């Protein structure tokens, strides 16, 4: 159902709408690729990073995840490129790079 809801191509008509546009399954925001809103992406310099986790704490989309080596990685499927992580990083380890320059 959740996948059907995200499908808004030509075969999804008004007849497929739930009564009152209710989303009957919880947690399906996770299926929404918000990463394609991004114009700038965060790049972390591991040389500077001291694994303090402020980027993880401040990310408004919970797009920063703790990886096995103890560093923090950005999940680009969700990251909207807001730049808060770069702003709060006390060691300036995160820089925002224009997407077209990648």
């Amino acid at each position, binding site marked *: 159902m959740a996948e059907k809801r995200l499908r808004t191509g030509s075969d999804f008509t*008004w007849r497929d709408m739930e*009564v009152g546009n*209710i989303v009957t399954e919880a947690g399906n925001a996770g299926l929404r690729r918000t990463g394609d809103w991004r114009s700038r992406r965060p790049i972390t310099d591991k040389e500077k990073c001291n694994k303090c986790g402020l980027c993880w704490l401040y990310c408004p989309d919970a797009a920063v995840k703790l990886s096995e080596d103890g560093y923090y990685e950005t999940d680009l499927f969700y990251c909207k490129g807001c730049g808060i992580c770069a702003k709060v990083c006390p060691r300036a380890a995160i820089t925002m790079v224009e997407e077209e320059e990648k």
Partner: protein
Amino acid sequence: MSRRIGLEASFAAAEAARMADVDVIAAYPITPQTHVPERLAEMVADGELNAAYVPVESEHSAMSVCLGAAAVGARTFTATAGPGLEYMHNVLYVAPSMRLPVVMVVVNRALSAPLSIWGDHSDAMAVRDTGWIQVFCQNNQEAFDMTLWAFRVAEDPKVLFPVMVHFDGFHLSHVTEPVILPEQEEVDRFLPRFHYPFALDPDKPMTHGAFGAPDIYSEAKIAQEVAFRKSKKVIIKGLAEFADIFGRHYHPVEPYRTEGAKTLLLTMGSFSETAKIAIDRKKKRGESVGLINLRLWRPFPFQELRRELKKAETIIVFDRCSAFGGPGGAGCSEIRSALYGESEKPRVVSFIGGLGGRDMSVEDFEYVVDRGREIAAVGSEELFATGGIRGEVTAIRG
């Protein structure tokens, strides 16, 4: 045994909400609606009604509370009037689009300026397209009956749309008339307990009121439109069930002595009763006239109206509301739309009057019919004429 007692329309509507055993009332007092929430607050305080009464700080909040209450499956009631209805305007759209079956009494009041606390239909017409089922009442009995009926229809799983019950400020809200109150057992038979199929529940999480991006908004609105039009079947079925249990018969469009009538006067609300006396007088003089009381305002009863109107030569529509710069009164423009596709159609004449509490007497309605026939006979391009207003308006063109 039913009881027949003297009640204002406001108290009658409050009594209907009590007998419907509402769970939540959220309302802000505004003249001339005040007696409705006052009475309900009294009932809750005195233990006559087991409900949550939420004394909000505005009508905007009143409707917002109603949305939340309905979303958890509470039987929800509110009441407002005139400027209060406009103050909740943007929240009004949310109830039908989220399919939340709130019932609201609107005690019709004029809009400023000049400041007026008295009755007309400007408030109702301004919320015409919000997606609420809307009915008008002619008297205090109907204020009780339509309020009760509103819960039955709103909560039907095939409907799940909110309902506005309109009755005229002061002309009904503050006038005492005999009202027949049914037995609680009869009410319970007519109105089963409310089970909202999409009630918010922490054990079954779901999302109400989600964001609608451009790729889905249009589909959402068309789905709403189709469902809303389909609700007319249940509206009519609900009226038939009401008649079965309580013995009073109501219809979306109510003809009064229209058989073979060449001229039909169309009115809404309490003025229909006054206009009926004018029709009686004219019938007695042998004039070919009749009256249509339009009860159901939304969804608009196109088919029923066409059936009643198309054989007449002249339709005179009396609106208690200005539609500035528009095609006559708001009601009139709907009637014209309903008839436009007919190959042979009556001439439709728009009258505006009864504004801001101005009374319309039986003689005033006799004048409206006479003048309406004159305008129709000369084929005037007048977009509207006035009734009961000093200094006649003539030859207003678009």
